[in-house]
């Protein structure tokens, strides 16, 4: 655990400015077993201290790769000098930020630093099962991944926090030979918040999941190309989560709104069907712990849920303190940094579409000719809300029944147009948290949603 090297500066920040001092350590463990060969076996530990000072409309930031009180003093001096220098050239004379509440938060879950052998033994056990049971696979790749962020924060507004956020995953990739001899692949990330041993103790615990994935890849090997064009689809919960994050979430980050996103002129207006409600959750969601709980952000603002869309109406943006001041909103703890050397940016935390009342089987039965899209490999969207998701597993729906599997494809649309077309919403939410959001810095995020019936454009032949 980090030693408290920040509290000594309480009351010692520059007057007339808003300051944060943050000590941080990130640990990463990454191992990959490709068809039995250990190709990656790496441990990473990165720590240091950073300070950010806001004055007259601009920020100064400085950091050093040392976790000492002396380094803390130096980065505070440098950050203050940077803020003053930039303010002289490009300042806007607005002084410090409006104050936020004082407080403290400490969330330090048990954190054993597991030896690399634990990860290796687990992967080898799981690989042995796949190799012996499914020798006909073209290839298999298993990845064990763990990261954690531990942060000690003191702000000039008087907020102190010490929080640790660990998460751990096993990724399973299976490749089989398709009908034309070309390889087809499926993959699944498993795990979530906490250390590796919380999720993965005995490889046998994942055998059933491997069997399920094998069945999927063999289905997919018989897959067909979808018919390109505008289609009625059921987006599975994983895709609804991706939609919530990529296509809507980014457009309602206040810094992107100020940069000209499509959400700017839509505040208070209808952007989705009345069945759609969406929130960026802080530490709990739907009565349970959120996938990656955030209790306080890196500006020293206590984290609260940020409502984004309510019954189809755009009701909120995500803010840092500066953008909240600009819009006259209240900051809700959305400013976060990835490393000690990074400045806090407006980031999503756990973004989800709320569940509805429909049963998934009724939704599938309602589609005469369309697709049920289950898994996505990646997604992108831009400030117009135009999005693209890679589809790595899906099925045709013909006359209300699941039909043939489809090969990899891409769907696209414009988020608010697509959300207006939502006419059925399933009653359960599917969360994922294994990826990173990319926006100058990477950031672990949770995303989730129920199944949605809507219209999208699907790529194909």
């Amino acid at each position: 655990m980090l030693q408290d090297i920040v509290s000594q500066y309480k009351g010692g920040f520059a007057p007339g400015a808003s300051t944060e001092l943050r000590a941080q350590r990130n640990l990463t463990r990454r191992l990959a077993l490709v068809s039995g060969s250990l190709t990656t076996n790496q441990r990473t530990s990165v720590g240091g201290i950073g300070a950010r000072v806001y004055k007259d409309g601009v920020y100064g930031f400085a950091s050093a790769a040392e976790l000492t009180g002396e380094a803390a003093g130096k980065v505070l001096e440098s950050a203050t000098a940077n803020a003053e220098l930039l303010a002289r050239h490009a300042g806007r004379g607005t002084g410090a930020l409006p104050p936020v509440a004082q407080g403290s938060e400490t969330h330090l879950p048990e954190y054993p630093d597991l030896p690399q052998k634990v990860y290796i033994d687990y992967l080898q056990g799981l690989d042995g099962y796949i190799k012996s049971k499914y020798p006909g696979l073209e290839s298999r790749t298993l990845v064990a991944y763990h990261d954690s962020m531990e942060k000690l924060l003191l702000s000039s507004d008087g907020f102190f926090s010490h929080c640790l956020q660990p998460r751990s995953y096993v990724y399973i990739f299976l490749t089989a030979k398709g009908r034309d001899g070309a390889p087809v692949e499926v993959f699944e990330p498993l795990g979530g918040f906490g250390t590796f041993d919380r999720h993965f103790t005995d490889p046998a615990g994942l055998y059933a999941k491997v069997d399920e994935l094998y069945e999927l890849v063999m289905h997919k090997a018989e897959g067909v190309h979808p018919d390109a064009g505008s289609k009625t689809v059921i987006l599975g919960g994983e895709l609804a989560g991706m939609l919530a994050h990529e296509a809507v979430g980014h457009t309602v980050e206040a810094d992107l709104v100020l940069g000209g996103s499509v959400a700017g002129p839509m505040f208070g207006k209808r952007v989705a069907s009345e069945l759609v409600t969406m929130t960026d959750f802080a530490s709990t969601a739907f009565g349970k712990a959120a996938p990656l709980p955030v209790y306080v952000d890196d500006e020293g603002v206590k984290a609260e849920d940020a409502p984004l869309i309510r019954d189809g109406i755009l009701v909120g943006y995500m803010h840092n303190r500066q953008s909240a001041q600009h819009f006259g909103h209240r900051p809700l703890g959305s400013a976060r940094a990835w490393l000690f050397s990074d400045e806090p940016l407006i980031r999503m935390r756990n973004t989800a579409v709320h569940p509805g009342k429909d049963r998934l089987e009724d939704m599938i039965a309602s589609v005469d000719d369309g697709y049920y899209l289950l898994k996505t490999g990646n997604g992108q969207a831009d400030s117009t809300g135009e999005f693209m998701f890679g589809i790595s597993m899906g099925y045709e729906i013909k006359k209300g029944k699941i039909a043939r599997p489809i090969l990899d494809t891409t769907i696209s649309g414009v988020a608010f147009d697509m959300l207006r077309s939502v006419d059925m919403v399933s009653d359960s939410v599917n969360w994922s948290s294994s990826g990173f959001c990319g926006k100058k810095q990477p950031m672990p995020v949770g995303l989730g949603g129920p199944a949605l019936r809507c219209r999208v454009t699907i790529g194909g032949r």
Partner: protein
Amino acid sequence: MNVKETARYALEKLRATGAQQYCCEARSARKSEFNVDGGLFSLLRTTIDNRLDLTLIKDQRRGKVLINEFTREGVDQAVADCLASAESAESDPAWTLYEGGRKSFTLGAPEGDMDKLFERSRELLETIKRDYPKVMVEQMIVEHDSAESLYLSSLGAEYATREGRYAYSLMFSGHEGEKTSSFNGCGVSADSLDQPLIELGEARRLLAEAERQIDTVQTDSKFVGPVVFTPGCAANMLYELLSNYVMDGVILDGTSQWKDNLGDAVADPRLTVSAAPLHPGIVCGERYQADGRLSENYDIIRDGRLASFMLSSFVARKTGREPAGNGSMNLVVKEGELPVESIIAGIDKGLLVNRFSGGSPSSNGDFSGVAKNSFLIENGRIGPAVSETMISGNLARMFEKLRGLSRERVADGEMLMPYIAVDGITISGK
């Protein structure tokens, strides 16, 4: 400890583990960065960071640790962790380091001129405001990065490097009333500030096009036709091609469809693609690899034939192939003979694609995605910008017979790339 002391101390500690081969690299980096958000200067950021990479191979078991702490206690712990990692791994005869000598490198602009960088940043913003009034700068990051590093290995390699570069990245979109274009971006690395930033890379063309992308048309039909990829987009498509057919992952797991095609014709005979970190147009390119080999430029595809896989020494030894001459992605593609206007003039109906937003291509090379910031080509001329238009095809087939490569190439400090025109792409609207 400083960089040299840290590297030498770490090498001693690695030697004491009894490992047969080991290496380390200590690096201290400094970043000075201006940020602009919503068109206004917002942040001055200065960071100092360290990095110590440790690798050891003991009884053919390999461990790797990365820390950023230059203290004796930190290095002692990291070496212990590295040894424990290696001892946990299975033995694999493919792991090895290579012999090396003493070299020192001075690359780019190790000393930054921050006053001039600020002036160039301000000049860039003012130029955009004056010359491209409909463009809104969402974010601009302008920086100078410098580093000092020392690589040492048990096989005699000692590489000392001082390097520095200027870089900027720009995210922007076109606006008129409530209408907005898709965002677009560009970025450049440079070793001097002699030229205004806007004159580097593709900035002027992309900014001008953002203004023309505010109003778009939808492609109302599905057709198979030619696509001209702009240099930035061509680099992305080539990266997807190489990932799918010649890099470590697909060779090791055996899913590459080119795995048995070394020396064979795999692409149009006019296509030559090199990985060239030593090319004079590349800023601070790689000079040595993690396994101790000095980097050299090499051709991946030469006159359409597969000349080399892009393999690390581990995967090369594992699969009985030759390792690549360097580990960079500094792609340099040989130019064609015609100006891009002539290539476009020969197209009746097609698409000029600036950015491809798509899912990862399938292992068999099939891809589909959205053509972003793109324009229709009609009757030999660039027409209106398009929205909600998808393109799909197959990577390998797409490069087998090119429509053309342009005479012009764009250099951005990371790559040197012409326009690449291909046929047989499925283009579909909503």
